[in-house]
Structures are given as C-alpha cells and as structure tokens.
C-alpha cells in the first residue's frame, strides 16, 4: 500500500504546475518547458485543439441555425444572462467558448459583469488582441500620487520581456515615439481607411496634444520564419477571430504557446481539471502541489511539483487562494495582508462620441480589418499642459470609421425595389471613438468567498462588490467631451457624445486581486510575482497588477509571466525555491 501511494505520488509529480491555459498559462507552460522543466498544465474546461476545435470558423452567414446567428432570447435569459451583457460577443458562432451562467453562479452585491470562457486557451481565443505596453509613468503613478501601493518594479524591469513576448506573438503596429505609449517590435501596421486618415490629419493639426495611430494588435502582418514554422500565417482580414483563426494569424495559447510547449516533449496538458486549492507543507512553508477536482469522475486528485504558477485569471486565481486555507493561512493562501480579492480593477468604457463623415460617398474599403484606430492617452502626462484638476490618470480611445451595410435597414420603414436597391449600397460613413479609462485600486472594491452559495460541484462561489468612484466618474465626463471635441475638430457632422453606462467587469480586463508590492503587509506578491509568504508559488495573471494603466493589459500579463518563469527556473536551479 505504501508502495502504491509512493508510485501514485511519483506519477503525479512534475517539476512545475501551471494552473490555467489562457493567455498567461500558455506563456508559463511555454517558458517552463523550453527551459527544460517537466510541466503539468491544468485547465478546468474542455480541450480546444487549434484548427480542429473551431467548428464555426468558416461558416457562411446562410449556414446558421438561427437568424443572423443570434441566439434565441429565451436561451440567452436562461443560460447566459451575464455573458449577454457584452451585447455582441455571444452568438451561435461563439457560444461554445463562453461559460453558461446558470452553471457558474456568483453573487452581485452591485452589478458585476464576469465574462468568462472555460476551455483550453481560455479568453486568449476571445480577446480583442489590442496589444500595448504599460509606460514608465504607469509604473510610477501609484508612488507619486500616494494611491494604493507602489509597484515593486519599473518599466525597465519589464522592457526586455515585452521585447521577448512581442517577437514571439507578433504585433502589428506603428511606432509613435510617445513617452506614454512605448513602442515595441512591430510587424507592418494595418492601413487606416480614407476617413480615419483625414481624421488623423485634421485632429493632429487642430489639437496638438492628440495623436491618432492604427491599433497595435497581435496579428501577423509579416510573419517571421519562426512564426511560419509554427504553422501560423498572415492575417486574412476576415475579422471572425472570435471563432478561432484557421490561419493561426492572431495570437492565442491554442495556436502558439501550447503547441510550442508541446514540441519540447516536457508538457502534460490535463483538461477537465478544476484546481480547488494549493497544498501547503506547513513545516517547510512551501506549496507541494495542488488539489484537483476531476470534472469527469468527480474525484479529488493531487498533483505535486517544486513550483506552482497560478494563471487562472485574476478572479479565479484569487478564488483558489481564498479557498486554500490552513493553519498557517487561515484567511487564504498568502493572504497575511488581507489584500487577496481586494483592489479589483478593470477599464471603464462605454463612453465616447460618434459622428457622420460626409464627403466620402464614392469611397469604400475592401476586407474586414480586425482592428481599429487608437488615440493614446493625452491627460495627466506629468506636464502642466496635460494636467487635470478633476481626476488622476487618463484614458485612451479605440474606434474607427466605416460604412454600415444592410443592417441599418432592419428596423426602418419602407419596402420594395427601391429599398432593396438602397440597401445593396453601403450607408453613410460613421466615425466612433470609445474611451478605455484607468480605474484606481480601491481596497473595498473586492470579491469574497461565498460558502453559502455552491456551484454544481459543491464548490464555494464568489460575491462581488465593485463600483466606480469620483475619479472615474469625473474622467467619464472628459472622455465624452474630448471625443466630441476631436470629431468636431475633424469637421464631421451630427457629432453625438454619449455615456451608455458601464458595469464593472465589462471591460473584461479584471485585475488586481493579489497585487505586487514591496511590503508583505500591504501586498500579496513580490517583485518577481512570488507570493511573499510562499516563494514557490507565482501569480502572473491579472491578479498581480498593482495599478491598471489605461491600456489593454494582456501584453503586460504575458511579459510578467515570462519574467517570473525566468526567475523561477534560475531560483530552482540554485535551490532557492
């Protein structure tokens, strides 16, 4: 019996365990395996194989089961009341990549939009692929302004890892030489259309502090030899990315990091494996592995390793930590500071402006560019001219110009041959700018473990209590007005500004639940993403973020992950873990 247990323990022992296979889990697995560590990656959801498991990738509009690929209202209400809040993402084409809310309940003390995909690859299949570096001022802002805690790292610590990640994933973009939006290693930028080009020229001439650039996006526009060798190809401008890309043209775990990890021969991927807690050796003060609920059998299985990477997404990583209680950590793993689950941040959006752009009726475009334009942050950059007295930090805009097609006629009056002829032509050019604003860390914007409400596996669920504060609300006014100002400056017509409202989480950039910091009393992770109180556990997903910046965060998560793996592997070699 003792022998049997020893053997079971041996077969379930690896050098490293990675929890989660999304954008950071994939990176952790790639880096660990390429550095020679036998690595187990655990994914709670089902397998999604690149190419094979993209069932809708080449479906034509006339091949849908439902009109326009929209899901019936009754089904949305019964199974996807939260996922539906994105308003666009969940369709017949993408349903298999979203969780069913009725199977994964949580509690909203205040509205909280938790948009999730539980499957191999996670939200790396679903992301909008916008890829920006945090700037030096992002890493310095908390300390300068006395907000939250100071980042324990600076831009120069992460810069080489941004390089490393960008070269591998492939980022298309335009260098701009801006302090607030550092340039990176870019493949050729995508093209702006006629109206966007004129918007750029006119706005930059009239409002000198504004810059308009093409979105920086993790799509291959000139694949490298390395990327081609991985079976990835050039972006075909289909803009059906959410279905999975048959060309491997955008970066996902499935198309890129997981196959790279697999090729080393050092990877074991186990899907249907819900990590419920970390196993702590209280004497050694180290984690020895993780407990897994095997989805298929309902049995608990333990896996062991020298080092554990938590990459389960900010909210689920914090859930695992809060659910891992012990004599040493009665309030959750590594939670001496009581900061686990606090400081939830996102990017607030849903505010901006739109206008009509007359004068381009004879112009159109060809191809569906999976990208828009970007207006880098222009407020509170450290100089007097950009300083605001009504709020801290800033926002960027994402947007673009285009001509609506036949959909514009769906609810309009009229019928017959003239109506048909009109709708066979593109509609008027429309321009939109939508803000992405930084949210500050607030200790009482938090999630807590709810042991009273259990999910279908009998596991505790989460309760969220997150709201915007004065700083964000003041920023939103400016986000609306500054967008209108730009569209007016461009000479466009019928400029309309709007704040359509925002539920925390809807940016789908949730972060901050196990923040990095210098002091174990006020933070959960150190400068290397190690849990202060347990050095062989690394947290490298959005949970680690000390502040949010206003740029899309995935690139920073990936860079932090690669950097942390480098530290873990060398520490392990030196016997320091």
């Amino acid at each position, binding site marked *: 019996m003792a022998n049997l247990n020893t053997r079971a323990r041996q077969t379930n022992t690896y050098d490293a365990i990675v929890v989660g296979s999304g954008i950071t889990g994939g990176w952790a697995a790639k880096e660990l395996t390429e550095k020679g560590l036998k690595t187990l990656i655990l994914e709670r959801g089902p397998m999604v194989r690149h190419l094979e498991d993209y069932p809708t990738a080449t479906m034509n509009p006339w091949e849908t089961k*439902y*009109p326009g690929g929209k899901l019936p209202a009754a089904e949305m209400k019964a199974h996807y009341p939260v996922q539906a809040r994105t308003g666009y993402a969940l369709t017949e084409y993408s349903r298999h990549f979203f969780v069913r809310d009725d199977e994964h309940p949580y509690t909203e003390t205040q509205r909280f939009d938790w948009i999730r995909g539980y499957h191999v690859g996670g939200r790396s299949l679903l992301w909008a692929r916008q890829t920006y570096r945090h700037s030096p001022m992002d890493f310095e802002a908390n300390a300068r302004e006395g907000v939250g805690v100071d980042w324990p790292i600076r831009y120069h610590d992460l810069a080489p890892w941004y390089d490393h990640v960008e070269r591998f994933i492939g980022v298309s973009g335009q260098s701009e030489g801006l302090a607030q939006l550092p340039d990176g290693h870019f493949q050729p930028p995508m093209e702006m259309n006629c109206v966007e080009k004129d918007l750029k020229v006119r706005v930059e001439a009239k409002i000198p502090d504004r810059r308009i650039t093409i979105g920086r996006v993790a799509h291959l526009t000139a694949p490298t030899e390395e990327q081609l060798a991985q079976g990835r190809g050039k972006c075909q401008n*289909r803009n059906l990315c959410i279905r999975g890309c048959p060309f491997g043209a955008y970066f996902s775990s499935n198309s890129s990091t997981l196959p790279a990890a697999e090729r080393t021969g050092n990877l074991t991927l186990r899907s249907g494996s819900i990590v419920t807690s970390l196993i702590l050796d209280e004497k050694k003060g180290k984690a020895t592995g993780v407990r897994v609920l095997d989805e298929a059998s309902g049995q608990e299985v333990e896996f062991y390793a020298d080092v554990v990477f938590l990459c389960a997404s900010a909210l689920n990583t914090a859930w695992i930590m809060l659910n891992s209680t012990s004599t040493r950590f009665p309030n959750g793993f590594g939670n001496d500071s009581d900061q686990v689950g606090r400081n939830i941040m996102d990017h607030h959006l849903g505010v901006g402006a739109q206008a009509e752009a007359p004068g381009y009726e004879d112009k159109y475009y060809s191809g569906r560019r999976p990208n828009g334009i970007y207006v880098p942050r222009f407020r509170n950059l450290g100089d007097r001219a950009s300083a605001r007295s009504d709020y801290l930090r800033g926002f960027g805009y994402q947007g673009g110009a285009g001509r609506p097609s036949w959909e514009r006629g769906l609810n309009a009056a009229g019928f017959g041959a003239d109506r048909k002829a009109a709708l066979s032509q593109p509609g008027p050019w429309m321009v939109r700018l939508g803000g992405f604003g930084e949210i500050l860390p607030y200790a009482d914007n938090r999630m807590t473990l709810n042991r009273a409400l259990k999910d279908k596996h009998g596991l505790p669920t989460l309760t969220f209590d997150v709201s915007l504060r004065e700083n964000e609300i003041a920023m939103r006014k400016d986000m609306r007005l500054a967008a209108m100002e730009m569209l007016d400056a461009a000479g466009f017509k019928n400029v309309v500004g709007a704040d359509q409202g925002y539920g925390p989480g809807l940016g789908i950039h949730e972060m901050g639940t196990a923040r990095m910091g210098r002091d174990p009393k006020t933070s959960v992770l150190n400068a290397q993403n190690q849990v202060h109180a347990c050095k062989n556990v690394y947290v490298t997903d959005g949970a680690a973020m000390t502040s949010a910046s206003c740029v899309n965060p995935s690139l920073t998560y990936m860079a932090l992950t690669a950097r942390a793996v480098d530290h873990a592997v060398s520490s392990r070699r030196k016997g320091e873990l």
Partner: protein
Amino acid sequence: MSNLPSRRQALFGATLSFSALWTTLSLPSVAMAQTTLSWSPKVLTQAQAQVLEVAVDLIIPATDTPGAREAGVARFIDRAMGNFYDPGQVKTMRDGLDRMQADAEAAYGAAFVSLGAGRQTELLTRYDAEATRQPLAHFFALIRHATLLGFFTSETGATKTLRYDPFPGEYRGCVPLKEIGRAWAT
C-alpha cells in the same frame, strides 16, 4: 426626414407602374404558388405560408438580382418561428398573415395571393405605415425585419445583391466604391 414620405411616394409611383406590368405578365406563376409551395411549412399553415411567400417578395422583389422568394426567405422565417422567435412574436406574425388574408377578402373579395401586385402593395403600404407607429408590436415590423435578415444572410442575397468575400486576404482602406459596386454582406 419630413420630405421622406413624399420622396417615397414619388419613387413608388415609378415602381408601381413597372410592378403592375410585371404582375400581369407573371400572374400564372402567382396563381400556381397557391398550390405549389416548394417547401413544407413547419409552423405556419399552408395558407399563411402562401401569404408570407408573396409578402417577402413584395418586401424584397426580384430586380436585377433575385428576390426574397427565390432566396427561400419565407421558409427561413417559418423555421425561425420554430426555433428562434418567442411565442408572442410567432403569434403576432401568424395573426398578421391571417389579417392580410382577411383584409384582402374584405376589400377586394379575393385571396391575398391572387390580388395583383398593385393591390398587394397598397395593403403592405398601409401595414408599413402602421408598423412605423408601433415598431416593436406590429406584425409587419417583425416580418419586414425577418425578411431583410433572411434575405441579406441568404447565399443569394449575400452574393448577388450584396458582395461577399469569405477570405479577403488584404485590407484596402480607401477604394473607389465603383470598384466594389455593392455593399459588403459581412
């Protein structure tokens, strides 16, 4: 906005005379449609389906490209009534199709499908005006919406009336509209 109705009436004038001529020529096929739907309705009655078949082709008629009838839009709507629309919407649409039949008989003493295109268009114009006043509740708003959706996502509508390119390859941001010719389907 205020000049829209008059502009539409003017256009209708031109359309009407053309349609009337076209209808006279193709009356036999309309009559045949009463007995030979090329598909079996799953939700609608045979009579309702025949009215719908004619209505969708009035909403999107054949012109230089095929219309909604050829694109199979009535069948598309019947299927969506079975798997997509909620029971209230299905009832609204079915009642609407029954009303079209009843209105035709009351006004002209004939089945809707056997009226000339001029009279059919007259009735639809009335429903269209009603639907504009109550866009969410009116059967014609639902049928018009479903017809456009069904037509422009059909293979015929997407590839002939519109342009469809599943694999564009390149993105070109500034192209003369003449070169593309029609709106993109997707």
